[in-house]
């Protein structure tokens, strides 16, 4: 479902060119659970942003569900992002003035969904993440784990095909980090394609497919079905 062909992403820093992604070829099927690990600066976030259509490749082709999305306009990419992709960030990125429910509602508002339908979807999603009693709390009234759960609710409320999580446990303690991973895995069990960038080997090893990156290249790509 996700297919990257000879993807390059170069950054111009001064008179130097940084090859953040250097000839990446990658195929991910629907419903896979992929972890991406590697040293800092190896290009993990860049790869995830590219897959999430937040960034454009310098060269190469990216097919999403067989459609070449590298040539889409900004508006079309935005719409695809809204419908097909959910992001979870290390630092949650909740809008501080909006309640938990308000944050979860945002992608639906951007999609232009009518209010009544929205309310039902938001309530249902919050319920699934055990956040119903926190619906009207502002982010600063929530714990880190709860905030990340709100962020996951927001990422999944549009029922995307792919959830991309960039170090989702990076700002959490061990216990709530584990909870967040469990929630993400349960999404994967319901058929959502899940990609998690992490520095935590323990978390990375839980994925069924483990990709290791170094200097903008894929160093190893192992399927872990055997030891499950």
């Amino acid at each position, binding site marked *: 479902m996700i297919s990257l062909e000879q993807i390059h992403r170069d950054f111009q820093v001064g008179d130097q060119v940084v090859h953040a992604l250097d000839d990446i070829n990658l195929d991910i099927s629907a419903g896979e659970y992929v972890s991406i690990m590697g040293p800092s600066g190896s290009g993990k*976030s860049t790869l995830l*942003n590219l897959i*999430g259509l*937040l*960034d454009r490749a310098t060269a190469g082709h990216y097919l999403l569900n067989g459609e070449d999305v590298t040539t889409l306009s*900004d*508006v079309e990419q*935005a*719409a*695809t*992002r*809204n*419908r097909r*992709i959910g*992001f979870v*960030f290390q*630092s949650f*990125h909740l*809008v*501080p*003035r*909006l309640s938990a429910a*308000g944050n979860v509602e*945002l*992608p639906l*508002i*951007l*999609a*232009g969904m*009518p*209010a009544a339908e929205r309310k039902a979807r938001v309530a249902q999603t919050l319920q699934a993440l055990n956040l119903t009693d926190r619906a009207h709390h502002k982010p600063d009234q929530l714990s880190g784990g709860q905030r990340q759960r709100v962020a996951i609710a*927001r990422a999944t409320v*549009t029922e995307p095909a792919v959830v991309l999580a960039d170090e989702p446990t990076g700002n959490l303690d061990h216990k709530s980090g584990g909870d967040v991973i469990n929630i993400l895995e349960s999404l994967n069990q319901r058929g959502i394609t899940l990609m998690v960038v992490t520095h935590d080997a323990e978390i990375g090893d839980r994925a069924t497919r483990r990709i290791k990156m170094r200097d903008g290249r894929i160093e190893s790509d192992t399927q872990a079905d055997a030891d499950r």
Partner: protein
Amino acid sequence: MQTGDVTRFAWGALCGYPTRTLLMLLAMGIGVAAVVVLTSLGEGARRYVTGEFASLGTNLIIVIPGRSETAGISPTTMMGETPRDLTLDDARALTRSYSVRRIAPLNVGSADINWRGKQREVTVLGTTHEMLAIRHWELSQGKFLPATDLDLATPVCVIGSKIRNELFGAQRAIGEWVRLGDRRFRVIGIMGSEGRSIGVDVQETVMIPVASAQQLFNTPSLFRILVEAKSREAIEPVKQFIIDTLQQRHQGEKDVTVITQDAVLATFDRIFSALTYAVGGIAAISLIVAGILIMNVMLVAVSQRTSEIGLLKALGAAPRQIIVLFLSEALLLSGLGAALGLLLGELASMLLRQLFADLPAHAPAWAVVTALLVAILTGLLFSLLPARRAARLDAVLALSRR
């Protein structure tokens, strides 16, 4: 996105930064209020002055001794000759046109009025019977000056109600003899209360026959001659008739100035309208300043909310949606500010009207509409740049910055 949602989002963003929002509302509000108050003052002054002139009479032409200066230096002024006086004979000559309805010569001076030891200084108008009709004055009691020959110095007077009250109090004034300067006059009428016009408060004047005034002030000349034309169309021919007649009577010298009420009215109207436009324009500059403030604030908002913008993009907001969100915020800000300003401005002009009952200080509709439009347009225009900057923000960078 649905309009209601956009508005709610923008409103939420404004409420998220209350101090900033209040200050902006105030800046915009003061700008609009300034336009409303200043133009209402200008318009009030215009209406006051033109109203006063209109109340002078209808189809009025005023003859003033002496040449208007616009004529430049004439041989007579070079030779040091003083202009010829206007006389009662001149006035009489002016009645000899079919287009003249009535005339009233006028003399003005001041004298002490005295009744049984009570005394005050008053303005004395020497005039005739016709004055009442020309100026649309009304009597509250008695009769006006008698319709006699202009030369007849009858010792009668008509007094203003204020003088009546001060001198006579509750006592009967009609029929009493008062002393004006060194002469005695019998009170035959009291002026009504509505008569008021530029420079002269009828309630504080005493009117006597013009010939009596000439004796009292010991002068053969007149201060003005008021001429009422039969119709509006007759004003110009009458004006020409007056100029010709007096030139003939004054041995060919054009030594009088003839002004028509219409011309004066039009001039004042122009002057005050220009004044109103000018103050309105100056006040509108504060709206532009407010617009620039809004631009600054929106620029700050964009950099403050960089990660929020990045997030919106990650959630699938198209560049245009980001622009719409920020423009709505600015529109809401300037719209509410303008509404606040309108309220403040109208309250202030109401206060002005309370304080100065004579001043009809109503902001003209064009000023109100323009102020609101300019406020909202500047708000929009000046936030275009910040909104576009927000829309162009690199989502990845915006999200990675914390």
